[in-house]
């Protein structure tokens, strides 16, 4: 009788609300941290000795030796505490983390440098003025003409690319005729095309007859965007489960209705992402634009006639000038360009994230 009561209270204690708290298993223990710190210090000592012995002067070599030394010491400490299997696991984790940190650091460094150099010139007037009345040493001036050019050129190219690319992707994935294989091969080959060749092509077949213009630039961009958007669209169509196609066919749907009403609406978000990826690829192209849109200092809103500037050309032209005002404008122009690409990428991520959710629930 008594023991039973005791057991019950013990059970209650185990079951008490205080014990019902979330407990996270920590991956990084204090011991590991201590070992890593120790390894970092001894790695530093090792690198310093080497530096003196080898007579190194730069930072790079010492940093690499420090990293290698720290890694070895870290391995030895962990192996002493556990076993070589566990130590190897820790080393691999460290290597992968370092790679990630290195790449992110590079990106952050690049972006912050760009923001640091570009931000002083970013004012309201930078977006409302062009370069037509601005001398190399005078203040003022802006990217209005280049921004208009970029939006028009990339916009026109996108309008042409989207139907072409989506139709091609439908041919490759939904219809898959005898030409699908060679078409896919050509598209893959095209995606490796150096961009200046696209410029030269349009220069030869268009600019020599009709002169420089924004639309010539759009044509060059079209050649560059087409493979990117087509292949991305094809990949998106491939993610649509065949069960949906069979379901539609079994209801008596002709193929064009199946594609129009089932495949394309289901793939819509992904196709938008594919298009934005293509735009992001095209918006920073410089070399082909030199041979097609040519660039200009004044605002030309008509993409069909006369040379037109765009953001890459704006930057390319100004960054080569020696005076500080021009350099500052070039950096600010670069910042505007990167911001444009960033906005596009964030939009793409947001849209594709939503579509993933949708498809995730489908499976």
């Amino acid at each position, binding site marked *: 009788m008594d023991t039973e009561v005791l057991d019950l209270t013990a059970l209650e204690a185990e079951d008490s609300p205080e014990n019902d708290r979330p407990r996270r298993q920590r991956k990084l223990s204090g011991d590991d941290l201590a070992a890593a710190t120790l390894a970092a210090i001894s790695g530093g000592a090792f690198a310093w000795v080497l530096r003196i012995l080898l007579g190194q002067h730069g930072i790079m070599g010492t940093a690499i030796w420090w990293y290698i030394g720290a890694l070895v010491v870290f391995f030895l400490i962990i192996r002493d505490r556990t076993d070589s299997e566990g130590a190897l696991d820790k080393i691999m984790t460290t290597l992968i983390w370092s790679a990630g940190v290195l790449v992110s650091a590079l990106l952050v460094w690049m972006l912050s440098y760009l923001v640091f150099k570009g931000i002083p010139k970013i004012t309201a007037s930078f977006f409302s003025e062009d370069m037509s009345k601005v001398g190399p040493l005078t203040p003022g001036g802006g990217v209005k003409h280049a921004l208009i050019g970029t939006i028009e050129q990339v916009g026109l190219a996108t309008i042409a690319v989207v139907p072409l690319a989506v139709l091609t992707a439908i041919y490759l994935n939904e219809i898959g005729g005898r030409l699908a294989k060679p078409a896919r091969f050509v598209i893959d080959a095209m995606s490796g095309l150096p961009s200046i060749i696209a410029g030269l092509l349009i220069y030869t077949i268009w600019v020599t007859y009709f002169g420089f213009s924004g639309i010539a630039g759009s044509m060059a961009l079209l050649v560059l965007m087409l493979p990117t958007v087509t292949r991305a669209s094809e990949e998106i169509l491939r993610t649509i489960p065949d*069960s949906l196609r069979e379901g539609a066919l*079994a*209801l008596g749907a002709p193929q064009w209705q199946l594609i129009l009403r089932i495949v394309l609406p289901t793939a*819509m978000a992904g196709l938008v992402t594919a298009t934005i990826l293509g735009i992001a690829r095209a918006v920073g192209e410089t070399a082909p634009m030199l041979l097609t849109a040519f660039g200009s200092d004044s605002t030309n809103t008509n993409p069909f006639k006369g040379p037109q500037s765009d953001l890459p050309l704006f930057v390319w032209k100004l960054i080569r000038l020696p005076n500080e005002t021009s350099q500052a404008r070039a950096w600010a122009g670069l910042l505007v360009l990167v911001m444009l690409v960033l906005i596009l990428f964030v939009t793409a991520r947001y849209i594709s994230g939503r579509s993933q959710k949708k498809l995730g629930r*489908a499976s």
Partner: protein
Amino acid sequence: MTAIDENHQAGLLHHEGEPATLDAVAVSAWFGSRKVLERCSLTMAARRVTALIGPSGCGKSTFLRVLNRMHEVVPGAAIAGRVELDGADIYGRTMSATEVRTRIGMVFQKPNPFPAMTIGDNVLAGLKLSRSQVAGRDDLIEECLTRAGLWTEVKDRLKEGGMSLSGGQQQRLCIARALAVRPQVLLMDEPCSALDPISTRVVEETIAAIGHDITIVIVTHNMQQAARVSDQCAFFLVETQKEPGRIVESGETKKLFDSPDDPRTLDYVTGRFG
């Protein structure tokens, strides 16, 4: 275009709602050079439920897909023999694959509602995909969902996406979607194999309820299910690995389960192999 549409409509009106007998005559089927079905003949009578049973890989699903020309969707697929819907060859020149499939509907193993459509639009999908206009859509949605045993569960959420339903509900939505086209025959390819027991029971009740209105052919791995839902049965078997599947025996379900003619059927239905 309009002429074709009108003919199409006339054809649909002609058969609409009327159950029909499906007759497979010496059907063989291939995937590339591999023969998977050998001269299978089976009459699936109107207003009756026919179950196709047999171990995995014996060609039941292929046979089912031959019945509404879904077999030919697979690249390299070929068939021999005839399939007649009330005497008219569905592989003949007068019938298109799309017409065959509106008259002979299909429900798949895995529920496949269209994710980009609402529940209501999913029900009407077949009509939208094959015909231009839909008259009285709300009534049709209610009728089909009621017949599929789903109406009370979803009547307040017709505007939600088809993916928001549970697996069993999705499958019943697919049945409602197939019924909305008013097929004469409904083919079901293991419709309950991805469902829990309770959903399975609801789907079986649905089959029992609609089985008197249209012709149903159901593939199932579950012997008890075949015994519960079907009026007649066909037993498929592959003798050795490389041979095509054949119909060993067919007939009334009761007879096939109680006193089959073929010893192999007896072995299978009593669970001695397969």
